[in-house]
């Protein structure tokens, strides 16, 4: 199974509509894969909020209006911030039946106020147990951060370093929300506290954007990238309830399954796309996928080992933090960026000698998890 082509629109505050963003991504991916739209057997569509932001349900039936292709299956995939990764895994499984599949992830978030968006996105949490208690996602991330920081003696300065690194990467990524924008430690440290202890620069930005990826059973072009494995799983929605609120063993469960399926070890991976909706996640996830021991991420961050020119390059194009986070598109953006790296087309974000890359995406707080490993 191979990735034949992919395309990302510029993320950020876009004047284009959701339809226009999707169209741009679809057209771009077809050109990249050198494929005609009629050759696509199935479409998988990833979106989280169109019901609120566009007043449009059943996006699957909107797609033929953009492609001109009717009569083919379009599968919707909604899994909060993890929709893109989950849609990709779903498409990979569908390759057992179909030959060529296009996955499209898109979101339009800039038309509404922050308080509206917090509410819309907040519907991805448990209605009765969390939404009614005011647990917007930055608050959930903050409570997780607070517990994790206390247990493993992590400082706000550690979180700042993550944000700084990702903004340095995003600054030179032309597709990133924060492309060309200088963000320094002072700005990060002085940014307002949204939900203590998390500050503005610990949180990813609402963003507009779309990504399309084309995959097939067979290798068609020289530049096709192998899909070594792609797994997904869902877990009990409520963020809190268990006895240990920061025991995220479900991450390890999905990670182990994916690595086993790819027949490789975490040490075999050269580059990592880690879902950093909140900066603390870039500390937690690497520890649970086995990259670092528990409580040791902070040392790698302090030593600069997760920078793009170092031993464990994480979020080399800016992560969700600096690329922006159009919910339905982010998981696919991670896969697109891994592919760019593997093909040596990541421009100023390029990492040397990359053979294998990993994308880890999740929805809600580690509740809809997906992980994909790509290989040159």
């Amino acid at each position, binding site marked *: 199974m191979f990735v034949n082509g992919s395309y990302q629109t510029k993320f950020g505050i876009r004047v284009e509509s959701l339809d226009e963003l999707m169209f741009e991504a679809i057209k771009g991916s077809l050109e990249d894969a050198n494929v005609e739209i009629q050759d696509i057997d199935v479409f998988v569509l990833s979106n989280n909020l169109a019901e609120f932001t566009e007043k449009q349900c059943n996006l699957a039936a909107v797609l033929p209006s953009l492609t001109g292709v009717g009569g083919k299956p379009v599968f919707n995939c909604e899994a909060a911030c993890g929709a893109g990764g989950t849609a990709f895994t779903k498409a990979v499984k569908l390759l057992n039946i179909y030959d060529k599949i296009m996955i499209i992830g898109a979101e339009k978030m800039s038309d509404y106020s922050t308080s*509206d968006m*917090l509410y819309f996105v907040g519907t991805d949490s448990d209605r009765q*147990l969390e939404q009614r208690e005011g*647990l917007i996602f930055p608050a959930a991330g903050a*409570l997780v951060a607070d517990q994790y920081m206390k247990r493993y003696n992590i400082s706000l300065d550690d979180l700042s370093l993550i944000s700084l690194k990702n903004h340095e990467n995003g600054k030179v990524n032309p597709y990133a929300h924060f492309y060309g924008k200088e963000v320094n430690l002072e700005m990060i440290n002085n940014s307002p506290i949204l939900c203590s202890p998390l500050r503005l620069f610990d949180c990813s930005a609402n963003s507009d954007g779309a990504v399309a990826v084309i995959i097939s059973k067979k290798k068609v072009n020289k530049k096709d990238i192998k899909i070594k494995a792609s797994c997904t799983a869902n877990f009990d929605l409520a963020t809190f309830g268990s*006895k240990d609120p920061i025991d995220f063993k479900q991450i390890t469960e999905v990670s182990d399954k994916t690595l086993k399926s790819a027949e490789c070890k975490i040490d075999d991976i050269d580059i990592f796309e880690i879902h950093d909706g909140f900066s603390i996640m870039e500390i937690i996830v690497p520890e649970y996928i086995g990259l670092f021991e528990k409580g040791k991420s902070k040392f790698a961050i302090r030593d600069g080992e997760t920078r793009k020119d170092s031993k464990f390059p994480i979020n080399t194009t800016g992560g969700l933090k600096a690329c922006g986070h159009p919910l339905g598109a982010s998981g696919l953006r991670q896969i697109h960026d891994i592919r760019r790296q593997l093909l040596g087309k990541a421009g100023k974000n390029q990492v040397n000698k990359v053979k294998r890359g990993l994308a880890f995406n999740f929805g809600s707080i580690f509740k809809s998890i997906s992980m994909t490993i790509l290989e040159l």
Partner: protein
Amino acid sequence: MYKKCKNCKRIYWRDIKSCLYCKSNSKLELIFPKIFKVIGITTVNIPSREHMRVPYYILLLKNEFGHTSIKKTYKEHKINTILRQRKLSKDNYIICSKMKYIKKSAVFNVLHYLEKKLKNIQIDINLVNCKPKDKFEAGQMPSKYITNSVFEYLDKHNIDNNIIKNEYIDLIKLKYPQLSNFKNKIEGKLTLKIVTIDNLKVIKQENNTIYLIDANFLTINSTLKKSSLLFATNNLKLFKEFLENKHIYEKTFYGEETEIIQDELKYLNFN
């Protein structure tokens, strides 16, 4: 309140009937924690559509059984503070409890607050089904469900259910003009009345809101699917003021502190 499988020890926050995982036939155990330790706090400084007043605090709590949960509050708390469900000590009270997946927990909550007083009062349960042809089967009706929960609570806490003086279950298949007659019936009784009113929205549409202030024990928007708040009071004047002035944030009740969020607020717009 949540459920625990006696066999495999799995925890369920939803009101499920049996554990599909271990296929155990044993009944799920209801866990009703009463002691909570504050183990984490976040101060939320950004307003969202349903929570516009900021800052507020979200407490991460650990109960006496070791499980965690969260609670929104406007009061400042310190880490390691122990929160206990308090019994009522004052004469006038409004208790408000959110009704979540296990709706019984709201009934248990308010009765728990009332427990001291329960010894000295009689309960008069009047169930009012306002819609002539209700979509619920009698046994599934929210009002019936709440009544059953009251009995269950009394039974669990060894409180003699003789305190329930009268119980009118599905007393009236009301047509709206009959509401005023029913009002006369329940007036003049000095006992604590439990009046559950189903389909409150219908009453509001009919512009007949008098029952809201007569109800001492009242569910708002009480379909099983959407029921959201359960009130209990012994002071109708206080309760009326609360409802009419829509003190949705400022009031801290004896018992649970709560707020009514926007989608619930629309059902309280009596004017």
